């Protein structure tokens, strides 16, 4: 929709007075800001030595959660890969080796360099298997190193859970028949 000429407000550059022309007031104003900040409370930290505390909903490195028996919780439904806008998740599914489950990820690789850390995978996951953690300082020496496979993602889970930084954030459903909504966990049913 074009903007009507009546809605356009033209602003002219301010004409400087002879006092302003000295530039001294501007200089004073700038320097006083600098000096004020020199003595006020610091907002920066000495990063490698000091670590910021990030909020629990921070979207950092992914992890693959384990179920009660320590197995990978993921059921290889590809919904995270479908939701991923950066196409950074690569899954190879296979019939699971466990009798109580049908399908599991044989391979699960996330390209952490390609990922944009939007958290859509976490949102899409029907069994709460993939979560983003508060680990933010992700570095590596090669691109290959930044392809996180299933073992590494499970290791991130072990690390973050042991460290206590990241509790399991979402626990909507149980594993088994994937994400069956349990009565006690779900909200009261409408129409009943």
């Amino acid at each position, binding site marked *: 929709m074009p903007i009507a000429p009546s809605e356009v407000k033209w602003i002219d550059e301010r004409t400087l007075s002879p006092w302003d022309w000295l530039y001294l007031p501007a200089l004073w104003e700038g320097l006083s800001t600098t000096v004020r900040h020199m003595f006020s409370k610091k907002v920066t930290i000495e990063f490698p030595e000091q670590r910021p505390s990030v909020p629990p909903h921070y979207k950092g490195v992914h992890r693959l959660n384990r179920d009660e028996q320590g197995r990978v919780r993921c*059921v*290889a*439904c*590809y*919904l995270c890969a*479908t939701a991923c806008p950066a196409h950074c998740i690569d899954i190879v*599914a*296979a*019939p699971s080796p466990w009798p109580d489950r*049908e*399908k599991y990820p044989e391979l699960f690789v996330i390209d952490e360099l390609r990922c944009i850390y939007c958290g859509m995978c976490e949102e899409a996951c*029907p*069994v709460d298997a993939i979560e983003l953690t508060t680990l933010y300082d992700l570095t590596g020496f090669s691109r290959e190193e930044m392809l996180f496979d299933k073992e590494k993602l499970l290791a991130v889970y072990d690390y973050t859970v042991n460290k206590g930084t990241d509790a399991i954030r979402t626990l909507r459903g149980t594993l088994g*028949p*994937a*994400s*069956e*909504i349990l*009565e006690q966990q779900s909200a009261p*049913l*409408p129409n*009943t």
Partner: protein
Amino acid sequence: MAIITVNGRDIEIGDHESLNLIQAAQRAGVEIPHYCWHPALSVVASCRMCLVEVGEKRSDGSIVMQPRVVPACQTPAKHGTVVVTNSPKARAAQAATLEYLLLNHPLDCPVCDQAGECLLQDYSYKYGRARSRLREGKLAKADKYHIGDQIVLFTDRCVMCTRCVRFTREISGTAELEVIHRGDHAEIDIFPGKPCNNKLAGNVVDICPVGALCSKDFLYKQRVWFLKSQKSVCPQCATGCSIWIDHNKNIVYRLRPRYNPQANGYFMCDEGRFGYHHVNSKERLLQPLGRQSSEWMPLNWLQLVQEIRSRLDEIRQAQEDHLTALVLSPWLTLEEAWLACQWMRQMCPRAKLVRGPIRDLGEDDIYPKTSRGEAVPRDKAKFIIRGEKAPNRCGLDIILRHYETTIVTWTQWLESIAQQNILHVYFINSDPLWEASALELEALRSLRTLVVHDIFPRDWPSVAHWLIPATTFAEKSGTYINADGLAQTVRPAIIPPEGMWSEARFFWQLLDRTGLYHAPTVRREIASTIAALQPLDADELGESGIPIRSCA
């Protein structure tokens, strides 16, 4: 002319058509949800999903509705029938039926292969409710991996539509599947020790409207929404079933039958369905190879064109062109065979054109089988698997007849190879399963030139002088003519492995034609040259192909 009213819209039905209300509503563009009804199977009206309100329009214009909902699949459409699918009563019936079907259905869509093409999902979304009101635990039934070599039954996902049972009784006639137990304990099962391994067994996976029957070959390979589908033709036998090639990221994942009343109907055989694995094979020949003394050297394609061309020039100058033969595989498309013949005749006008080897496994396999396992008469056949395992023998014969007076078959030619003192052979084989026997290899060993076009290297390195990779049916673009003379378009689903040229492109280059190979253009060129193929002079052959009358 019968006039039927569907949701207030009048549609006309021809006098000799016998349609049920589902089909009649489809004509009006109205979907009546259904699970158990399938156009190729008998009507049982057991799923109750297609319940609609039905009435009659009388000659005085008044409409009398029946007081109850009736199954649309079992109600024939006749003049004056009034169907209402969206009234509160019909809607309530649909929602209630779905709720019952879903009572024990596990919510395992994330691990179910059918998710994405599942009628339970679709109908729940359109006609069902968002939540289950069942407070008790769901019945869990054990998975049945033993039900067939190619199929697996996830028993708890079944909605007991019995399409699979009716398929094995009516189409394959082998009747392996049955319903055991009653009520909510009913299950699909096999008779003890008699798994469902007939040659059409894979079809039960397609006709299963839910994820109960899955294909072991495709199990957990891909989610269906990643797959892209291409219309093509199955090359595994002379029936030439219309198929969908489902592929993703240049890998073929499965083949599905595509409805074609002129070729295969709704189904396809397992040999064709699971016969695509050579396309993805790691063993495939990927680069042209040329033999220099005893060493095999990789060649690039332009180099190869030069070498083959200069070799044929030498042959012609040595006056040996009558000692040359071109062996054409019946797996080549019409266009490829045409270009190859044209090129060979241009280079060596007296060269012999030979019909290549056809795997022939004897008699046609006709379904349904009777209860004793015998085939029904051919005129009562519902599905025929041809013994002749080549998709385009008919088309190749038409091309060969254009160039030669009689068709020389592979076996005839092989017997005469020594007498005729054949020295130079260009052999094209695109059949992934054909293997040259020791005798055949021996006959080819003494040749002065042997150029082989094949998908796999096989035993060729010991006899050939040039080895050229061939493309598979999923990479070809052209026309196949089946045993009944039905010409259908083969469309490329995936691109050939990196750098590989299709046969058509290679012969196009050898012919030194300008521009790019375009199958429909070449087809029209053939159609305007060969009178028998006149009907193919069209831009498109359509969904179900064009019949060629003069085909033997």
